[in-house]
């Protein structure tokens, strides 16, 4: 029964998102970036494949981050704003199932979008591989349709799942979607720089501030862990241990964020 209800809430979120034109516009934005890559193809020689891979992966990530933040923070806030939450929570649905269902629905949406955009990127790369002369192909550090791109995409999906959990957490206690978005984006940016934050005490001569910033560096989610774009694009080796650690890290941190969201939401009252 629990799995069925969570699945139903998730399916409902997915259906709403598919019907929401904002998602299409973000996807269109990503497609435009891929199209821009094609233009670059006309203007560069030899370096075009790397640029397209880099730009394509960055576009997929950016589209996912925008979706994750702006849809994530409105998942619960929207229900409260339009008061549909009154109907949902008066049903025999435990609140934790509602939160987990909402989260699963958005992660499903994100995974679908990432998969679709990755498909577009692979098609673009396949076209390049099949139309480039042999001497150009020989100069590439990695094949055009390099399956290792999927490693980057997989880690990106884990990163988006974690970001969604954080956005959802903020949306459960803040009554303003904008504030939740600002907090989520702030944490995301801090997380991208978490390595630098953790080593801050080594670079400054201020023990208290150094310790404080280093502590923050350990608390914020380490989003930099998930970025293997450089390795993938340049055909550099990726340590499998890093991949598994990153996935486990995303899973654990997401569970913690969702649990915190459930605890806050379970105590919340709706006037």
């Amino acid at each position: 029964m629990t799995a069925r209800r969570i699945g139903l809430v998730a399916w409902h979120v997915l259906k709403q998102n598919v019907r929401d034109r904002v998602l299409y516009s973000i996807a269109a934005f990503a497609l435009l970036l891929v199209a821009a890559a094609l233009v670059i193809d006309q203007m560069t020689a030899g370096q075009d494949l790397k640029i397209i891979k880099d730009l394509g992966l960055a576009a997929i990530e950016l589209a996912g981050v925008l979706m994750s933040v702006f849809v994530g923070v409105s998942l619960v806030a929207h229900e409260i704003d339009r008061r549909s939450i009154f109907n949902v929570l008066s049903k025999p649905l435990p609140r934790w199932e509602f939160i987990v269902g909402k989260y699963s629905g958005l992660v499903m949406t994100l995974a679908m979008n990432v998969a679709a955009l990755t498909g577009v990127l692979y098609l673009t790369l396949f076209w390049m591989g099949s139309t480039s002369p042999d001497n150009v192909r020989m100069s590439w550090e990695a094949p055009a349709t390099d399956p290792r791109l999927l490693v980057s995409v997989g880690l990106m999906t884990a990163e988006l799942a974690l970001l969604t959990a954080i956005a959802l957490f903020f949306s459960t206690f803040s009554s303003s979607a904008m504030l939740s978005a600002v907090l989520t984006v702030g944490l995301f940016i801090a997380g991208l720089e978490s390595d630098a934050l953790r080593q801050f005490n080594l670079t400054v001569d201020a023990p208290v501030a150094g310790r404080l910033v280093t502590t923050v560096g350990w608390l914020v989610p380490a989003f930099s862990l998930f970025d293997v774009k450089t390795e993938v694009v340049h055909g550099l080796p990726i340590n499998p241990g890093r991949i598994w650690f990153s996935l486990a890290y995303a899973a654990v941190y997401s569970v913690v964020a969702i649990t915190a969201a459930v605890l806050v939401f379970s105590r919340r009252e709706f006037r």
Partner: protein
Amino acid sequence: MAAIVRTEHLTKDFPAGFWRSRPQRALDDVSIEVPAGGVFGLLGPNGAGKSTTLKVLVGLLKPTKGRAEIFGRAPREVSARARLGFLPENPSFYDELSAEELLSYFAGLCGYSASERRARATRALDLVGLGDDRRRRLRQYSKGMVQRVGIAQALVNDPELVILDEPMSGLDPVGRHDVRQIIVRLRDEGRTVVFSSHILPDAELLCTRVGILAKGRVVAFGGLSELTASASRGWEVVFDGLTEDTASRLGGRVRRVTRITASRYSLEIEAAERPETLVADLSAAGASLVSVTPLRATLEEFFLQVSK
């Protein structure tokens, strides 16, 4: 008869703002009991605490003090809400869904299988007269239609207890009539309906029992006829064969004399006056009694009296 809804000394405070330490009291020591079956009206002016009471009863709000129960359980227990249907005030749903999709979703939240969901959605929409419009997107619905969808979603799990917050609010006369008919049908099916309203004629038509709230407190509670009888306005006694001279000599004993025909008069006397004495006196003067009718206060008069 066992109470299906019960509140005991229910008190609800809301924070009044960051700088104000004293909270705003929305409900103050509210104790009510609603037996199974029939229609219970929670009445009161705006801001009296009706919606707050109902939201506590469906688990959207927690009591600050006291307790609230439905089916003998706390409303926050999922099992208690399985037998409940709730319509919030001015309901709002997902515009991008059709009514059928919405109800199917809510039926699923109540635990029904995929095959049963659609059947329940269709049945509930037919009940509120929206069967033909069930595939239209909700954004195309009028306010009255959204209200009906709200009632349909409250009935999708075939609940024993239906709680409706201002179900007639914002509806035109036809819409109000239709909602009244739905409530009557639910009552006739043996369900318990609790609804809040400040539209007193509707309550008077529908309710078997009422509770009146004012400033968060219960100021009257009980059967509708008992309450209005307790606020009796006196008696109307009609005599035939009464002469104009006799009628004019009644003076201070009657509040109002109305001549109906040449020899038939309607006399209104105060509640404290015994109609038997007047009947005896006028019968001795040759008049014959036609009828004696107690003049009961309307719910509106009673409401105004107690909510001051």
